[in-house]
């Protein structure tokens, strides 16, 4: 196959067509192709002698192996092959390119010649210029002095005259190159410049028109347009052009069809297979022309993202990756935002809770048993008096705990049964030696059924509660004491009697001893008896005073083992005088086996005294012969010991029933109405029960039951 170029190899148009065709042929040809090329150089040498010499040369060159097919490139190559085909490629089919419709019409072609007709569309190129520069009023048209150039001159005049839009037209034809450059530089800014072809200037210098496009458009002070693809990229704005590659591709396809056996006569020539608007983005930018004004489907070349066209796959992949990453990042951001929001809400809620806790004087804490780590809110610092900069550790807390409560606090943190909330009250010693009470509420959270390592809970400052409790206890003690004093006041006669009796005995014995000593032969044995009696009686008086002092003593309740029978006896011993004065007989019926209970003997004695006094008061109007009190002890139910006081008095009147234990309710003229209230309180404090009922046989039965407590050690 022979590629026959009309000009030399520097002509971009024919080179592009040849390249496009060659690539296509090599790609698509079923058999290996040998492609030759020859350059006729008809632009430089136009004389007939050169043409015949060239034909001779080719005949010599291809005599032995004439080409099977010829592709002509450049318009003037077609007339050449028509005239000289028989010299070097007899009967070989010809596929021509770059032939204008006018030339094609002028040639009378043999049948096995077909090809691509190229129409360089000045009209559409002008239309592009008009669209981009709607305000432009002047038009400059450049063409040279060569054969092709002169053809363009007449075509251009005709087209411009036919145009609807009228310009002030300046035809820069037949100038010398230097003159042309000068002319071009003087063109006003708001003009349209059309560059056609300059194969030769007025002085006869030959040019490659595409090569002039650069300097001319650079010199021009107005945008330059041209109908040639090869000019684009050199500085012109653009035009409606044929892409020479596509011409080459179409020509190759035709050649392949012919080689495959198709009759070239049946293949009609094609016109402009790949014409389109093409513009140079850089030139648009240079002249400040708007891309938006371009006709649709305009190909914009040299735009920045040309990478796109070159590395489309990579770019798409990159974009996809970026998009995917963005998506992931976005999702992460959204998640982060949500998390932050949740964290904020959590933090807010935690802050609220911490604030509320602090306001309520509550500290929150959590303890990891295995790691021995303690977490606590800042408020705990204040509660435990831990310095701002000191770490909140378990030891820091324990060091603030009162030494006596240290065991309790440690135990609360260590041995907590699962799910069993525990409460322990401990004292805290603040740096200023102030002691405060803190209640530790602890709860262990079991995770997945197994014993948890975490104990959580709260610290509550209960100092005020404790002091209030202490205050109440103190007041109750005070009232109890006052009641005892008042009972003893009522019993003062009886008590005086109890002390007076031993005093009488002591005095008598002492004086007897003195008298005995005064005798000549003192009876020593009798004196000893007297002295012993004095000691005995003195002890007896001391005992009474001791009992009195205990009853009168203020102070806290003391838990001790109390023998119920002893309690009854010692209480009754204070009542003897009173019983005599009131003509009341008292009988004891005590359990054989003495029962022990745990409690405060003074308080219990107070209860018993109160009940007996009530019994005595109740019998004020009972006939003397019937006045009697029976105190009995025993157990009616297991684990309890009862003390029962029966009288023969008026009993409980219907209107009093149910009100007896009310504070300040009294039926006595001199009572405070606190006696039974207090008795009930005391018995309750001893885990016991106090009841008052009427005896069927008359009188009342007061009974209190206390739990029997045997000491853990063997009392025997």
């Amino acid at each position, binding site marked *: 196959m022979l590629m026959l170029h009309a000009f030399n190899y520097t002509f971009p148009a024919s080179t592009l067509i040849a390249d496009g065709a060659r690539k296509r042929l090599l790609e698509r040809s079923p058999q290996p192709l040998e492609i030759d090329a020859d350059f006729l150089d008809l632009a430089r040498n136009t004389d007939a002698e050169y043409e015949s010499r060239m034909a001779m040369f080719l005949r010599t060159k291809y005599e032995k192996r004439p080409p099977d097919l010829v592709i002509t490139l450049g318009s003037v190559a077609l007339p050449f092959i028509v005239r000289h085909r028989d010299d070097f490629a007899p009967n070989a089919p010809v596929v021509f390119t770059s032939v204008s419709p006018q030339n094609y019409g002028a040639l009378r072609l043999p049948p096995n010649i077909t090809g691509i007709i190229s129409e360089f569309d000045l009209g559409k190129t002008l239309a592009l210029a008009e669209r981009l520069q709607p305000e432009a009023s002047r038009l400059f048209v450049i063409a040279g002095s060569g054969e092709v150039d002169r053809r363009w001159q007449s075509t251009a005049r005709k087209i411009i005259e036919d145009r609807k839009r009228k310009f002030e037209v300046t035809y820069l034809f037949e100038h010398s190159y230097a003159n042309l450059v000068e002319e071009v530089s003087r063109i006003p800014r708001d003009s349209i410049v059309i560059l056609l072809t300059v194969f030769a200037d007025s002085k006869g210098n030959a040019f490659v028109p595409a090569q002039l496009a650069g300097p001319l458009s650079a010199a021009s002070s107005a945008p330059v347009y041209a109908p040639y693809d090869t000019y684009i990229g050199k500085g012109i704005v653009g035009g409606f052009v044929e892409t020479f590659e596509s011409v080459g591709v179409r020509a190759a396809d035709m050649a392949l069809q012919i080689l495959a056996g198709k009759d070239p006569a049946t293949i009609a020539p094609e016109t402009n297979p790949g014409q389109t608007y093409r513009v140079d983005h850089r030139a648009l930018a240079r002249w400040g022309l708007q891309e938006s004004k371009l006709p649709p489907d305009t190909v914009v070349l040299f735009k920045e993202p040309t990478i796109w066209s070159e590395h489309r796959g990579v770019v798409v992949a990159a974009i996809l990756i970026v998009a995917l990453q963005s998506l992931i990042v976005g999702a992460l951001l959204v998640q982060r935002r949500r998390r932050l929001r949740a964290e904020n809400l959590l933090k807010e809620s935690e802050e609220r809770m911490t604030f509320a806790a602090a306001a309520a004087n509550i500290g929150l804490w959590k303890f990891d048993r295995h790691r021995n780590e303690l977490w606590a809110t800042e408020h705990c610092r204040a509660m435990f008096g831990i310095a701002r900069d000191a770490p909140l550790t378990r030891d820091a807390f324990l060091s603030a705990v009162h030494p006596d409560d240290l065991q309790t606090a440690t135990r609360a943190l260590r041995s907590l049964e699962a799910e069993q909330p525990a409460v322990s009250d401990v004292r805290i010693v603040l740096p200023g030696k102030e002691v405060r009470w803190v209640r530790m509420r602890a709860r262990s959270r079991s995770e997945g059924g197994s014993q948890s390592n975490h104990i959580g809970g709260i610290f509550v400052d209960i100092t005020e509660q404790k002091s209030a409790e202490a205050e109440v206890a103190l007041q109750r003690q005070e009232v109890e004491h006052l009641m005892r004093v008042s009972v003893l006041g009522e019993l003062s006669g009886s008590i005086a*009697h109890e002390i007076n*009796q031993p005093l*009488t*005995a002591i005095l008598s*014995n002492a*004086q*007897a001893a003195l008298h005995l000593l005064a005798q000549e032969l003192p009876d020593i044995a009798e004196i000893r008896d007297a002295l012993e009696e004095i000691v005995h009686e003195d002890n007896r008086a001391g005992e009474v005073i001791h009992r009195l002092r205990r009853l009168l003593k203020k102070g806290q309740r003391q838990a001790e083992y109390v023998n119920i029978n002893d309690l009854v006896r010692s209480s009754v011993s204070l009542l003897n005088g009173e019983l005599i*004065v009131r003509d009341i007989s008292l009988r004891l019926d005590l359990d054989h086996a003495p029962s022990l209970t745990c409690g405060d003997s003074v308080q219990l004695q107070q209860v018993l005294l109160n009940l007996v006094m009530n019994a005595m008061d109740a019998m004020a109007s009972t006939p003397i012969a019937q006045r009697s009190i029976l105190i009995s002890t025993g157990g009616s139910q297991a684990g309890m010991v009862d003390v029962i006081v029966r009288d023969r008095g008026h009993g409980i009147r219907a209107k009093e029933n149910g009100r007896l234990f009310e504070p300040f309710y009294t039926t006595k003229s001199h009572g405070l109405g606190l006696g039974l209230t207090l008795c009930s309180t005391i018995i309750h404090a001893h885990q016991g029960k106090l009841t008052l009922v009427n005896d069927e046989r008359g009188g009342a039965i007061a009974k209190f039951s206390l739990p029997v407590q045997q000491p853990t050690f063997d009392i025997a």
Partner: protein
Amino acid sequence: MTDKFTIYLVDDDPGVLKGLSRLLRTRGYEVKVYSSPRLFLDEHDMTVPGCAVLDVSMPGLDGLEIQRVLSAAGGYHRPVVFVTGKGDIPTGVRAMKAGAIDFLTKPVNDKDLFEAVSRAEARDTESRRLHSEMELIEAKVSTLTPREREVLTHVVAGQLNKQIAGDLGTVEKTIKVHRSRMMEKLGIRSVADLVRMTEKLNLSK
């Protein structure tokens, strides 16, 4: 033994009982102790000279009641000394009105007690002497005939023999005989003695 002055000590308090009895015994008194009024009254012998030292407030029967019981026993008044832990005035006044020797407050001082007891002893001796004198007079009076007793009352009333004879419806001479026999029987010489004797009798009634 029965003639010896005996102190009957009654107190419900054994300690007091022991102390007081020891003290009294140092003075050489015979002391009998009773822890309850009932025991004392059951065993009491009015013929034995002595006095009662009683606690005022005791369960069952108090000292004042014992005093009343003792007084109701007849011609003889057992002297009573009260000891009390309370010493309130109304009780003291009642006791003294009923003829108590003293009303002592516990603890009792030995001096006060001895003084009271010796007074009681004197009273007892005196009243015993009076009592026996009375008994003698009464024995003498019991020997008189009814007529002599009538004459006696008229003489004591200060009537002359003549008036008495008129009142009794007899002659003066008969009255004189009755009168001298009565005086002889009673062992009295003068009318003044006779009046003093009858006054004693009236007192003891």
